[in-house]
């Protein structure tokens, strides 16, 4: 299985029925593919419509119905159009059950940096700061290292997205829960040793008892 599919499948296990969930562009958007068919979830994209469905058949696209990345989508039965004010009312008002975002760095405090690399890449924060500040659960879905460089670090060196502790970090190597005490290692990736995880991680990991492997299909 590819790294990103491991991550997406593991994140999907966090989603409970009837949740309102926002999936970021890129890797997080794959999570939808791994939800059991019988689990009904409301997907929200920042740009509007609660109840996003998959891409429509060719020729049936509607230029007024896209996801936040501009890709064509459909509306599931029971969908609701919302404007940006309502969209962020849901996000910032504590109504969004879960957001899944990509990450550049996460640190020992559980703080996320994911919106810019000074001097290199300034795309803008979009809705990321609102999502991390406002969602009930914040899940960071990212590969464990970037071309060998550690992404889970003692202190973020990149500009922070928010000073809020994220709920969970899911990589292809590990599931990590940021807590008041620090980063607790919950699960290992398929066939990944504790040693490999520690080596690939730039922050102190709290390892308690046996650390089980992720259960994937």
């Amino acid at each position: 299985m590819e790294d990103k599919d491991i991550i997406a499948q593991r994140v999907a296990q966090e989603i409970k029925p009837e949740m309102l969930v926002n999936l970021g562009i890129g890797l997080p958007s794959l999570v939808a593919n791994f939800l059991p068919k019988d689990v009904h979830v409301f997907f929200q994209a920042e740009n509007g419509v609660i109840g996003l469905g998959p891409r429509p058949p060719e020729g049936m696209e509607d230029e007024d119905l896209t996801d936040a990345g501009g890709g064509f989508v459909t509306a599931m039965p029971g969908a609701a159009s919302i404007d940006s004010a309502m969209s962020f009312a849901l996000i910032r008002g504590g109504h969004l059950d879960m957001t899944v975002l990509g990450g550049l760095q996460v640190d020992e405090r559980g703080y996320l940096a994911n919106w810019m690399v000074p001097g290199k890449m300034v795309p803008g924060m979009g809705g990321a700061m609102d999502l991390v500040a406002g969602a009930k659960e914040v899940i960071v879905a990212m590969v464990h290292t970037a071309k060998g460089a550690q992404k889970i670090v003692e202190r973020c060196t990149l500009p922070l997205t928010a000073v809020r502790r994220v709920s969970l970090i899911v990589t292809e190597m590990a599931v990590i829960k940021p807590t008041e005490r620090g980063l607790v290692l919950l699960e290992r990736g398929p066939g990944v040793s504790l040693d490999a995880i520690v080596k690939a991680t730039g922050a102190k990991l709290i390892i308690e008892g046996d650390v089980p492997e992720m259960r994937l299909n």
Partner: protein
Amino acid sequence: MKTALSADAAAALIPDGSVCLIGGFMAVGSPHRLIDAMVRRGVKNLTIVANDTAMPGKGIGKLITCGAVRKVIASHIGLNPETQKKMISGELEVELVPQGTLVERIRAGGVGLGGVLTATGIGTLVEEGKQIVEVDGKPYLLEKPIKGDFALIGCKQADYYGNLEYSLTAHNFNPIMALAGKQVIAEPHHIVPVGVISPDDVKTPGVLVNHLIERAI
């Protein structure tokens, strides 16, 4: 009653140097015919407030490419490399604002509030130079209202009073921006006679709209 203008006649109303709020999210829901007419007319020195600058050749991206814009206030410019290039070369000033904060700042301008008190951006670069107000011991950023000389609105349907309806993810910033322009110009796909739209279907009351652009077809 409002007589519907051609897109060119509407573009002629917008002087160089205007502050324009422009609806749309990655070009979905933007007033496309008006933008094309503004490019044709060669408008200059605009300040554009919008969620994003779309991509080259699409929506607001066309205004960026043709050099009509001096300053952009947006949440995301990542999918338009020309915006980034012009920003780095100093040709274009860019103010990045979290998406939820941006929509609330525009709303505050439109509904007459003194500003927005938000937790989004606390502890990040967004905080710089801004007043922090404590409410019951919790710190909030004071974000200032935004108003435009013009709000340029894309919509699904209008009547000749200017009552507006929107479609799916083409709502986005449009309904809120229609509150915050000194002059509001709406570009509907269709226009119907007064009395045809049910009162409950109106999302922007016509009293907010100054000019209508002719229907698309």
